[in-house]
């Protein structure tokens, strides 16, 4: 019944520590070439990285907006120290800017003002969505572990509160956050003495089991899936449930190509099988997964949704 509503393609924030020039050039290309409607910008994982992008942020914002895309600023996912709190305060303090809250401190600071809620806030049910909506939430990106049965149950009540629902459909899945930096630990350092060593792994540092099976990917204080989420086969079903926004999480692969594939499948210009072939052609160094969506172990890949 909601099949006719406009489907937005969104680009989540870069979660990794990319060199500022790479970061800038990535967004320039996204601005110019990627068929995405919303671009989330800002440091979500580690407060220490945020100043690295200060110099290039204004030109990135200008280029993205000039291309007719909406900019939303994402806040830190884990907020504890004075520096982390100050960073969230600074981002939330931008007058008129649209902010995505990723923790309770940002929810508090954005109360009474229209805002987005990011996937790091636990919004699993209609009761939570109603509270977030009365505090100003207009769009909520659901936790990545939500199964489709729950997503289907949530979209209607969310729409009744005036909230758009967003679901991540591509990229490594955020699985956990910690106070400890695991990149620093792997290099014999601590969070305070890290020397930004996370910049060596632009898609995350792979952890392998004792059987040498790739398992997880470390990104500073964040732990992610090794497998790449691929819900291309589910986007039409999600749209029918009432999901209005589809989030691509940036990686070093050709994200413009990824965005085009998702846009074309959403628009019915390309069928799902052909779209899957295009994603397979990215030749990622990791398998795909969709298990959370199908209600199974997250690492599994069903392809069922591709039928």
């Amino acid at each position: 019944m909601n099949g006719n509503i406009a489907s937005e393609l969104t680009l989540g924030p870069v979660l990794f520590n990319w060199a500022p020039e790479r970061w800038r050039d990535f967004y320039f290309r996204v601005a110019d070439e990627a068929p995405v409607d919303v671009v989330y910008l800002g440091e979500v994982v580690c407060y220490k990285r945020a100043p690295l992008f200060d110099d290039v942020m204004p030109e990135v914002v200008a280029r993205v907006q000039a291309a007719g895309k909406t900019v939303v600023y994402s806040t830190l996912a884990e907020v504890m120290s004075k520096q982390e709190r100050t960073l969230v305060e600074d981002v939330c303090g931008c007058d008129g800017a649209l902010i995505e809250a990723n923790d309770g401190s940002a929810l508090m600071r954005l109360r009474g003002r229209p805002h987005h809620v990011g996937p790091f806030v636990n919004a699993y049910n209609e009761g939570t969505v109603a509270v977030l909506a009365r505090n100003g939430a207009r769009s909520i990106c659901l936790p990545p572990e939500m199964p489709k049965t729950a997503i289907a149950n949530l979209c209607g009540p969310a729409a009744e509160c005036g909230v758009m629902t967003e679901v991540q459909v591509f990229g490594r899945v955020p699985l956990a956050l910690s106070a400890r930096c695991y990149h620093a630990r792997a290099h014999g350092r601590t969070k305070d003495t890290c020397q930004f060593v996370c910049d060596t792994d632009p898609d995350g540092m792979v952890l392998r089991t004792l059987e040498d099976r790739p398992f997880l990917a470390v990104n500073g204080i964040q732990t992610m899936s090794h497998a790449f989420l691929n819900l291309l086969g589910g986007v039409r079903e999600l749209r029918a449930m009432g999901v209005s926004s589809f989030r691509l999480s940036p990686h070093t692969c050709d994200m413009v190509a990824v965005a085009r594939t998702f846009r074309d499948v959403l628009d019915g210009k390309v069928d799902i099988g052909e779209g899957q072939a295009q994603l397979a052609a990215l030749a990622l160094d990791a398998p795909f997964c969709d298990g959370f969506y199908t209600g199974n172990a997250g690492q599994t890949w069903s392809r069922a949704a591709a039928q």
Partner: protein
Amino acid sequence: MSELRRPELVCPAGTPAALRTAVDAGADAVYCGLQNETNARNFPGLNFAPAELKQSVAYAHARKAKVLLAVNTFPAAGKFGMWRDAIDLAAETGVDAAIVADIGVADYAARQHPNLRLHLSVQAGASSPEAIRFYCEEFGVKRVVLPRMLTVAEIADLHRQIDCEIEAFIFGNIGMMAEGRCSLTHYVTGLSTNMDGVCSPAADVHYEEDTGRTLTTRLGEFVIDRFACGESAGYPTICKGRYSCSAQTEPYYAFEEPVSLNLSALLPELMRAGVTALKIEGRQRSRAYVKSVVSAFRSAVDGLMQGREAAFLSLLTLTEGSRETQGAFAGKRWR
């Protein structure tokens, strides 16, 4: 030296028998959960039927101990009714507080049962004054259970900026990931810590011994650790596992070694920092564990109140880890 206020010793009760044991051993409060997904220790053979909860509240109250009911998981849309029932039961049963994590559950409790005292579970992951104030102002939360990631100095600083009480873990198993924000178990097993209340469920745990008597532990399909003959094998949880990566020449504990938390030597510092409730982990543990740990901390706290020095309580034989740690509490180098 400032005078110490008598803290509340909050103890685990996985079963009615463990609850009686904890109360008899000197617990000021016990916390427990129902036999379903509404709490974060949803393990087979554990927890309370509604009638057992009623009897247990009567037992505890007759001995001046409080009962706190953990309703601290996150209902997925379509399943909210089970959590609503748990909150209604908490109110009917006369428990002294419900420990909640989900915003929707907290909102329901605050609106439907305004006299039910609410504590914010560690699962809510509220680690800053602003986040804690959100729950206090929205739902009238009276106490926050702090994530196990703050130093004592940071707790003291936090205490000055919030109006609610602070409860902190002092002993037991520690996960390495921020509570309420970890889907690692779900990624491997299909059961979610947040939605189903399980972490590393026993049904998915496998132990395999080879001919050389090397023991491999597995969760689902993934090897978590391996132990030579004679080494004591830990229970396989993903954040305590051994892995390899490009930055290390040998497999290593990428997140943390199998340690458990013991803050017995830091109790006076914690109390001076503004912690008014001291929490012992272990609802999944035996009555013997409950009896030993609760008794030890009861006499430690009583000793402090009588002016005795804090002493490290060696309880290593009771823990799940192979050594004890003060974790994040002792300083920032842990991070």
